[in-house]
């Protein structure tokens, strides 16, 4: 098996597909950095200006009334007026670079918003305001900033800040990228059967060698992600790896950037193993690279197309493939909310991997493939 693995790696090394995939990953990262620069992602003043616009149009749903503390208007109206005042304050704080003021009013704002969810008539204005989960995550984020006394970070293109954004995007497309990359994993060998026949080893070992060599290339992709982002240290500085990130992993929690990247990497690696095994099995069953790809993409898209499925089958591993949405608690804001736990997600994917290995073993040793 080791000899075969060595041969496989030599083939992978000179494969055009890999070279192009490497170019693609590099282009993706550089493009993303340019995109962030162009769109001014994370500009607090612009963000607060648009929030101010939103709240003003929420207020325009009401007749103008006395919004002072003992005025005769309803609670929601008073609440929204107070929110508007705080957002204006934040905009000033962002412009004048006063992080303390910004964080304090952010906490106050989040508390107000939390109160607003229970008030009468909230559904009418819900579209202008962040969802419950988003608000909750923001609230604990600013509270942590305040207790740890960390200034609000302004440069979103420094190395560690960029990594959060990068992994946030990767969460949504990692599965798709892997599906594209691995969809033809066995097809090449079906075409050149002499390669398989040249090695007197059982077929399952052959498949294992193939899987391991593909996995090692994927690991190199992950390393490449970091290597390409390193360029930003030169241009924008290192950033702060202990800066907090608010996530939902079953509870509302604060992770440091390093922790966040850690859990993303765990997910990426387990998804990679899962996709490789799935591709191998589908390749054997369908004997066509594109059909494999389409089936995988369809499986990935099903929970998005039919959100009811997520709450009916919370342990379906495909619910956890988009780990950005998972860590942002998106499933909490669905019509049928369900709390997806990131640890259970890893367990679910892990169990599915075991099942896939068993299935692969059964399939590949029953001689179905030996005819190839």
């Amino acid at each position, binding site marked *: 098996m080791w000899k075969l693995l060595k041969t496989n790696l030599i083939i992978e090394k000179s494969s055009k*597909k890999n070279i192009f995939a490497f170019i693609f990953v590099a282009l993706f990262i550089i493009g993303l950095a340019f995109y962030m620069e162009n769109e001014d992602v994370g500009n607090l003043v612009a963000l607060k200006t648009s929030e101010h*616009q939103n709240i*003003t149009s929420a207020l325009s749903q009401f007749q103008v009334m006395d919004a002072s503390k003992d005025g005769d208007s309803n609670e929601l109206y008073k609440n929204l007026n107070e929110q508007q005042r705080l957002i204006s304050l934040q905009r000033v704080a962002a412009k004048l670079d006063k992080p303390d003021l910004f964080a304090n009013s952010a906490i106050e704002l989040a508390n107000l918003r939390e109160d607003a969810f229970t008030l009468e008539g909230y559904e009418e204005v819900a579209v202008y305001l962040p969802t419950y989960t988003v608000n909750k995550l923001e609230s604990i984020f600013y509270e942590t900033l305040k207790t740890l006394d960390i200034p609000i970070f302004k440069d979103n293109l420094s190395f560690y800040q960029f990594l959060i954004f990068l992994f946030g995007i990767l969460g949504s497309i990692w599965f798709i990228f892997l599906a594209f990359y691995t969809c033809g994993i066995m097809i090449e060998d079906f075409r050149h059967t002499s390669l398989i026949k040249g090695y007197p080893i059982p077929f399952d070992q052959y498949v294992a060698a193939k899987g391991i060599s593909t996995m090692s290339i994927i690991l190199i992709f992950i390393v490449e992600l970091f290597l390409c982002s390193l360029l930003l240290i030169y241009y924008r500085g290192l950033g702060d790896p202990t800066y907090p990130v608010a996530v939902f992993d079953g509870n509302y929690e604060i992770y440091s950037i390093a922790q966040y990247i850690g859990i993303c990497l765990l997910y990426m690696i387990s998804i990679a193993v899962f996709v490789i095994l799935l591709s191998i099995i589908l390749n054997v069953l369908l004997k066509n690279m594109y059909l494999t790809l389409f089936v995988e993409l369809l499986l990935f898209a099903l929970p998005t197309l039919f959100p009811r499925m997520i709450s009916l089958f919370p342990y379906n591993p495909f619910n956890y493939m988009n780990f950005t949405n998972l860590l942002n608690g998106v499933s909490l804001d669905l019509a049928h909310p369900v709390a997806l736990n990131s640890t259970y997600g890893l367990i679910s994917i892990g169990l599915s991997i075991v099942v896939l290995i068993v299935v692969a073993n059964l399939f590949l040793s029953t001689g179905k493939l030996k005819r190839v």
Partner: protein
Amino acid sequence: MKAYFKFELSQFIKSKKNIAIYVLLLFLACFYALNIAPSYKPIEKVDAKEIEARYLSREAFLSNFTNENRFTGMAGYGLAIYPKWNWLDKSRLDALNDNKLKQYSKFTSEWYIYSNNITYGSEHFFYSPGYYTHGNLYASEDGYYGYLYSASRYQGYAEGKSKLSINVFEERTALQTLQRLLHSYLPMILMICCVFLTVDVVLKDRLNPSLLKGFPISDWKKLIIKGAVSLIGSIGVIVPLSVGLLLIGIRYGFGDFQLPVPIYSYSGEPSYFNKGEFINITMGSYLLENFILLIFCFMFLISLVLLVSMIIKNEFANLLVAAIFIFNEIFYFKRGIGFFYEVENYPTNYVQVGQILSGYRNYIYNSSALNLGNGLTALGMGTGVLLLLIFLISKYKRYKLV
């Protein structure tokens, strides 16, 4: 050559991958028609209640403040602008209640123009709340476009001969849904399908080289035929999509080809102060223009994929290069840069065909040059250059097809 064409076409149709693409598209079209289209919530909806609420509170204000000359400041401003505004709202409301849809269109068109004049750049008035969703940084710009677009559209309804209904007003009929989709992500889906249909058209021959020895045709001609087959196949994606349209049509009506489609265009050079205006064209000519531009995009993509297939001989590379063409725009797109750069020269700028032809891209790029003519020139010249390269390369033995 005819025999080879038939041979390629039958291979194309029988390919498992291609059948899967058509089936997948059929699934998506039906899913859209049954699941997404019914839940569409237009921002500019027809809502008598909303008009009535606005009308009544303003009417109350006007009846309390009768003497116009005695009030200054905000009250005076209100007294100056509300009478006409309210008259328009009242006329709309009456027309809607009497089911006089032509009348409604006429007054609604005027209402949108009047409202936009007062709302744009104002601190006291806002566009329809739908534009101000959480996180939209350009809500008032979108509102400006949306209001004048609606004004022009309703003017078209009032002057045109099409059969009107609430579904037409809310752009729910089949043809209008198609128009809306062409304005959003449909062109990208069509181009991705085109790439998937073309991706292996050259490379599949390398698996069974002996089969092709029987055709005494030069590589160049073979490539042209392969390109033609892919183009026919790509146009064929219309078939599964039309099933979805049929489903929408049964439910909401089909609309007709005379319906107005507002096009945003400039009379002079665009600048901060010189905004464009909307001109109506018919649905038929809008869809025809879309079709033409889409075919040029297909031809560009197909020649690109053919060229890459010859040089690199790897399907993954084909996908990558084509994906770069389709998604390249997001890397340099920024609101308003059309004023500084000549974006109309890049073929990659014409992927969103619906937005190009309706002038929306001109609006957000602040340019006046993104139009059908320039698009055809850029894509056509690009295709010509690619075909020339293919022709030259096909003469080299090193790049032989099989």
